[in-house]
């Protein structure tokens, strides 16, 4: 596991900067191409097993998200939107169909490979922030880089820059419990961005925030999207969905539009 990690990072990332080489030509070997979709899902199904009962949750999803798109997924609770996001985030397995993320077929990945893809390709933002309560803001933001074996100084440097950008320069050493909801979510967004992943997945990112703070978060997302990142946001808030460029409606495990 340890010996294969550098191989991965050298193939996906610039040796000097550690940044994803997405500014290069579309034909380069990295597979990050502006023509290719970031997410390509075909006839994807997923069921949960409750005792002897099988409950189908995703019933044949077809979905394509292009590089640089800002998409929201809407649907009533129980429609399968969280499950879809978990599958897209390689946090959960799917039963049938295909899911290709950034040119990689996800199904055959081992658990370790999956975690490495998560680490390099995806940044997560959750409704309940999911910060580690015993770590300061800067340590929380730097965590994903720890699993990339980035040296401490570099990790802190990058985390600090992101927190400054989030307007949290004066809060970097505060613990999550000392921060407001909006501040926590900005720390979580900084954490999602710290590995410079091409894809950000957000699960009800404004669900625990007041409307003013929600607005700030959405502005931040728009800004990130303008920088070239692909964003997929799950929400049940029409206003939030209206801020994205495309809305996908999910109902009863299927895409409606």
């Amino acid at each position, binding site marked *: 596991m340890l010996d294969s990690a550098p191989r991965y990072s050298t193939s996906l990332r610039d040796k000097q900067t550690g940044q994803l080489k997405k500014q290069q030509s579309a034909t380069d070997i990295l597979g990050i191409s502006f023509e290719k979709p970031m997410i390509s899902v075909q006839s994807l199904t997923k069921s949960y097993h409750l005792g002897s009962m099988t409950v189908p949750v995703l019933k044949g999803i077809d979905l394509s998200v292009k590089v640089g798109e800002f998409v929201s997924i809407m649907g009533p609770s129980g429609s399968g939107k969280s499950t879809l996001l978990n599958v897209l*985030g390689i946090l*959960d397995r799917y039963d049938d169909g295909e899911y290709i993320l950034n040119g990689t077929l996800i199904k055959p990945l081992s658990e370790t490979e999956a*975690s490495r893809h998560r680490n390099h390709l995806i940044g997560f933002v959750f409704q309940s922030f*999911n910060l*580690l309560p*015993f770590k300061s803001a800067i340590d929380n933001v730097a965590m994903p880089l720890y699993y990339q074996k980035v040296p401490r100084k570099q990790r802190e440097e990058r985390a600090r820059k992101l927190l400054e950008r989030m307007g949290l320069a004066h809060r970097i050493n505060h613990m999550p419990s000392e921060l407001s909801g909006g501040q926590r979510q900005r720390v979580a967004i900084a954490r999602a961005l710290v590995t410079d992943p091409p894809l950000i997945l957000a699960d009800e990112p404004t669900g625990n925030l007041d409307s003013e703070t929600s607005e700030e978060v959405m502005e931040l997302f728009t800004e990130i999207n303008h920088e070239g990142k692909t964003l997929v946001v799950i929400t049940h808030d029409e206003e939030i969905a209206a801020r994205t460029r495309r809305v996908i409606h999910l109902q009863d495990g299927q895409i409606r539009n």
Partner: protein
Amino acid sequence: MFDFERWTELGQSLSQHKLRTGLTAFGVSWGIFMLVLLLGMGKGLERGTMALFQDTALNSVWIGGGKTSQSYKGLTSGRTVSLEIDDVALLDSLPGVESAGPTKLLDKGYVMRYGKNSGAFQINGISAANAEIQKLSLLSGRQINQLDERESRKVAIIGARINDVLMKNQLNPVGKTIFIGETPFTVIGVYNKALGEQSPNRVYIPYATLRQVFDAAPTVTMIALTVSAGYSWTDIKPEAVRLLSRRHRFDPNDSSVLEIYDISNDVKKVESLMSGIRIFMIIVGTGTLMAGCVGVSNTMLVTVKERTREFGIRKAIGASSADILFMVLHETLVVTLAAGYVGLIAGVGLVELISRLGIESDYFRHPQVDLSIAVSALGILMLSGLIAGYLPARQAVRVSPIEALRHE
């Protein structure tokens, strides 16, 4: 192995639950402490018990005369059989007998004088061979040698109590002349401990001198012999009894005639008792240790359960199962090893303190934790740390990130 980052993570993680970590660590410390203490004390018990044999060679056999209980070849029962000096030579010539020597304790006490001080004490005649068999613990001077024996020299080893009475313990008595009855003897040594004596208040002189000066009869009270390596008394006994029964005309099957003490027999019994006690102590000690480790395992399981969300977050941001497994295993091992080390030091320290303070009795002296005990305790500790860590770690790895993130 030494990765500063990992240790920082570990410190943060353990310090979240200081009390719980502390209590768990205490369980392990206590287990190791008890194990080391038990084994160290066991060593003391063993040494104390074996010290009971220090006044005699461990391969010695002591034979004395007695009374017949059966009539034999026209001789009536109840006849007294006394061993004699010629029997010593007879036994000495047997294959398997290393050396043999007589002891003869005179029944009545003799008045002994030095200057104006006097007292009555018993005399014991022994041969030079006995110096090796019956180990008089000398405070000063030397043992009786073959020259003393051959020339029937008037030399004496006196008990420390006699030294006390006659010389008021003020002088070095070696080289001084004391009177036993009317005969002058040169003191060649002082002893403070001897087999079969409560306090050192006898005089040991050469057997030949005893016969010449006090009692000409060729009898001996006991014959002491040592068995050569590769032999045991059981091998020698039939022939020895046969020879003695022919000389003294008694039934070789009459077991009441000869009083025989085989020291090696007692030693074996004590040794087997000791190994039994040792095994018992290992079982009890290991059990205590295991209880500590089950405690660690249990606590870690609970901790893992509570940290489900944390593991989920870590997985979501890129930790692999191996990272999580290693993290939990690392925490358990560090807690177990650090706590065990503290217990080990405390146990060794206490045993050492008891030894230094000189706390001892007839059956207990110089407790010690030897290196092999310490090493095996450490080995058990490592092993139990791994076992204690593995179950929680496996549990942690099984956590699915989604389940974990839903976990409130």
